[in-house]
């Protein structure tokens, strides 16, 4: 794969500013996951939903009280006979829709709505919350109820999931799992229980290659499977501080974390403090539900947006089918997560991180205690002496808060090859290492700026194989089993099914990992994440190193990176300082509107105003050394943006600039 492609012009061609005065409290608005202004709907992308019960479908269900007209799955299924392979999709039977144990029916509708609802009404009337329009309103949603029976629900969950994973022609790219099963048979959360094995196996099948998004544990727990997956993503929920979703929700349960030192949580996303599209019978006085169930579909929906974008780009120079891979999705979504707000207020060692140094992040995420941030996390310090090098993710935050806008910026910059031409400061790669000790080198084209942060995320798969595979072979059937790995008491228990992979950050031209200035080398899991403050302006490179050959000589992986150039002022309108004028700069401008923030004062008139938007618009799509220019429509609802920005309280006089 050669060279980066600048896709900002395509990305922003249909830019729409949040058209609602309620935009500041929409989860897909700027204070949520910021997906509504991307010009993407997930159109043409098929996504899945697996739960105990399925949502109603207005296309063929007839009981109007059991569906919402704005939540319209493309297909629905319900497993009707145990343990055969039969499913039905045509019967109108309320028992297939409603959990008889739930007196507030509609979980599957809420979850589906977060992904695809077209509802824009406000059933609560005037107030701070409005109904949520789905993250990916154009996606085709395939939903299935597994109709599981205890105590071991896993076989029914697995075969139901597979039912939508392999529907011919559906090409399901990501599946949402806002449910969990109990541990059975003496299992622990080491990835060896059947449903966890199944989704990790399914993800790796070439004909499936699905990103599984699993709701994290909460409350008193008890249904933790498959949160201990390796190849998917597990999502905790965030709650609002003011209007911004940025605090780890108080009811997340992190006691049921994966075994050994592995962290289950990959990301957080909104799960409290917003309305959802509900069944028609839902009284408007009912407080809206809370849970990780509602965080996961935000990630699933965002993955659908990225898949749509990949479809648009594949076939253009620099883009191929690798862009669709679940590992690429995972690396992109995690590497672009928000940790610390990029507005000069974050202090490191007594000094503020200059504007742009935090990669355009739009919020500071705090943990359940309400004050601890990434800087307080065991995952933070990736220096040679830091503990963070063994702990890629924070146990509560994972890599941080989902930000769809930043994810698209991360993805949009395209794929670069290792060991080839120098890479840009933002990008990703689908690569392969070739054995124990082999490494792939990524050299940055530009100097990286002192005091700015670099973020690198590496994702690869564990291997799962059948122990018993009954006909039809190569598919999961009830009764099939997967091989369990055995802890020999010496290696980490997952080592027999995982190759070890590490990240090293080094000065450009380094000859050995002994020259590394930062690293992440967790001995467990299939994820490495480095977030490190560049000590001095200079030339750098990073290596992806294969550490063993436990499950084969070669190892495929996805890596995403984001760093800051030493000369951000080269391009006007590049408010984030990443060397490219893109959507992240627009978001920074919007967030700082009305302030005297010098970094987003492109016109130099002392205040961030419409003139700075003009500067951004006129240089959209340009990058260092590029004269490319994109067109963008006038922003709609500018006045509302002004009100929103003021309402957000971004009234700061931030005059700290990056120092070289």
């Amino acid at each position, binding site marked *: 794969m050669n060279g980066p492609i600048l896709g900002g012009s395509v990305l922003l061609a249909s830019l729409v500013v949040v058209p609602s005065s309620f935009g500041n409290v929409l989860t897909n608005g700027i204070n949520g996951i910021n997906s509504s202004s991307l010009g993407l709907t997930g159109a043409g992308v098929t996504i899945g939903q697996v739960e105990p019960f399925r949502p109603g479908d207005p296309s063929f269900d007839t009981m109007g009280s059991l569906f919402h007209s704005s939540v319209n799955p493309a297909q629905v299924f319900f497993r009707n006979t145990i343990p055969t392979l039969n499913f039905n999709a045509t019967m109108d039977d309320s028992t297939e829709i409603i*959990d008889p144990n739930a*007196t507030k029916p509609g979980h599957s509708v809420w979850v589906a709505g977060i992904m695809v609802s077209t509802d824009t009404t406000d059933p609560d009337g005037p107030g701070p919350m409005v109904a949520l329009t789905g993250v990916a309103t154009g996606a085709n949603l395939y939903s299935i109820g597994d109709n599981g029976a205890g*105590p071991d629900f896993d076989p029914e969950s697995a075969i139901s999931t597979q039912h939508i994973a392999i529907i011919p022609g559906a090409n399901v790219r990501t599946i949402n799992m806002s449910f969990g099963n109990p541990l059975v048979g003496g299992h622990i959360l080491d990835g060896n229980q059947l449903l966890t094995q199944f989704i990790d196996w399914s993800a790796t099948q070439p004909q499936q290659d699905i990103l599984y998004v699993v709701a994290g544990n909460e*409350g008193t727990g008890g*249904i933790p499977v498959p949160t201990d997956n390796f190849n998917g993503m597990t999502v905790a929920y965030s709650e609002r501080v003011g209007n911004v979703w940025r605090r780890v929700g108080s009811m997340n349960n992190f006691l049921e974390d994966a075994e050994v030192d592995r962290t289950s949580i990959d990301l957080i996303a909104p799960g409290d403090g917003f309305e959802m599209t509900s069944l028609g019978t839902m009284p408007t006085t009912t407080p809206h*539900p809370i849970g990780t169930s509602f965080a996961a579909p935000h990630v699933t929906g965002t993955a659908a947006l990225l898949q749509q974008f990949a479809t648009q780009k594949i076939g253009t120079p620099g883009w191929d089918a690798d862009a669709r891979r679940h590992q690429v999705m995972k690396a992109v979504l995690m590497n672009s997560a928000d940790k610390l707000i990029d507005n000069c207020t974050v202090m490191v060692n007594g000094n503020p991180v200059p504007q742009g140094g935090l990669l355009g992040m739009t919020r500071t995420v705090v943990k359940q205690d309400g004050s601890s941030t990434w800087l307080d996390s065991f995952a933070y310090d990736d220096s040679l002496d830091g503990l963070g090098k063994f702990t890629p993710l924070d146990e509560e935050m994972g890599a941080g808060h989902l930000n769809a806008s930043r994810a698209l910026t991360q993805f949009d910059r395209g794929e670069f090859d290792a060991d080839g031409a120098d890479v840009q400061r933002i990008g990703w790669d689908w690569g392969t290492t070739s054995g124990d000790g082999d490494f792939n080198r990524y050299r940055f084209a530009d100097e990286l700026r002192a005091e700015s942060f670099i973020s690198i995320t590496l994702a690869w798969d564990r291997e799962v194989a059948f122990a018993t595979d009954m006909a039809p072979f190569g598919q999961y059937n009830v009764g099939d089993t997967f091989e369990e790995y055995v802890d020999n008491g010496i290696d980490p228990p997952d080592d027999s099914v995982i190759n070890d992979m590490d990240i090293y950050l080094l000065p450009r031209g380094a000859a050995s990992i002994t020259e590394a200035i930062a690293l992440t080398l967790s001995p467990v899991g299939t994820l490495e994440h480095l977030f490190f403050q560049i000590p001095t302006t200079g030339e750098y490179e990073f290596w992806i190193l294969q550490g063993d050959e436990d499950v084969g000589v070669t190892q495929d992986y996805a890596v995403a990176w984001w760093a800051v150039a030493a000369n951000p002022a080269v391009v006007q309108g590049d408010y984030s300082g990443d060397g490219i004028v893109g959507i992240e700069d627009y978001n920074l401008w919007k967030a700082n509107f009305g302030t005297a923030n010098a970094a987003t004062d492109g016109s130099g008139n002392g205040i961030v105003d419409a003139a700075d938007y003009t500067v951004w618009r006129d240089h959209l799509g340009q990058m260092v050394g590029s004269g490319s220019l994109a067109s963008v429509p006038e922003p709609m609802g500018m006045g509302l943006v002004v009100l929103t920005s003021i309402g957000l309280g971004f009234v700061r006089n931030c005059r700290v600039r990056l120092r070289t």
Partner: protein
Amino acid sequence: MNRFALLYFGFAIAMLWSATATAAETPNEQADSDTVTIPLDQIWAYGMPGTRDVRELEPASGQSLVSQIVQSLREPIPQQKARGFTIHGWGLDALREACAVLANGQKPTNAFLAGTRLSVVFFSRISSYYVYVQKVERDGNTVKVYFRLVPHRTKELTEHFALIPLEELSPGKVTVEIIRSPMEKEFIGFKLPDAEVESRIVSQSFHFVIEEPRQ
């Protein structure tokens, strides 16, 4: 032993078993003879099957009482045990009183005059279990509230409360026993909260006093 002898022996065993079983049941029946069951459909509740939906009691205007109560049950789980309590009134009056205690911090009363309408407030704070009142029995001044814990398979959290009407209590101490019923067979394998955690989530047994009307 011939066939008739065997039949006779079997019959005798059966009769003996039957008599034993009857004897075992008789005391309960006698004990239950004064037991009054409060039907579920007389209980106003939030999120409990078989009960009356308390949201139907909401006044037409003003801030939702149910929402206030639910929001209070969503606060971080305190370290102290959750205490059940009794309030004046039935229906909407009880809902208002419950809201005053749960959402507005009013201290619950522990003594009531005989002859007044009362309601027991049973509640569960936000958790990953549905908490349902299954049966309520009253025997004299002992009230037994049986509830079920039904584990979620979906990853949303729920909170629940019920307003259980009481009347004709005799002066003296009234005991309200909160009793968890065994988990149903279909949920075997699901984890139950340990007793300490459960005591902070689900309101616990308590007492109150009925006083003679003052002359």
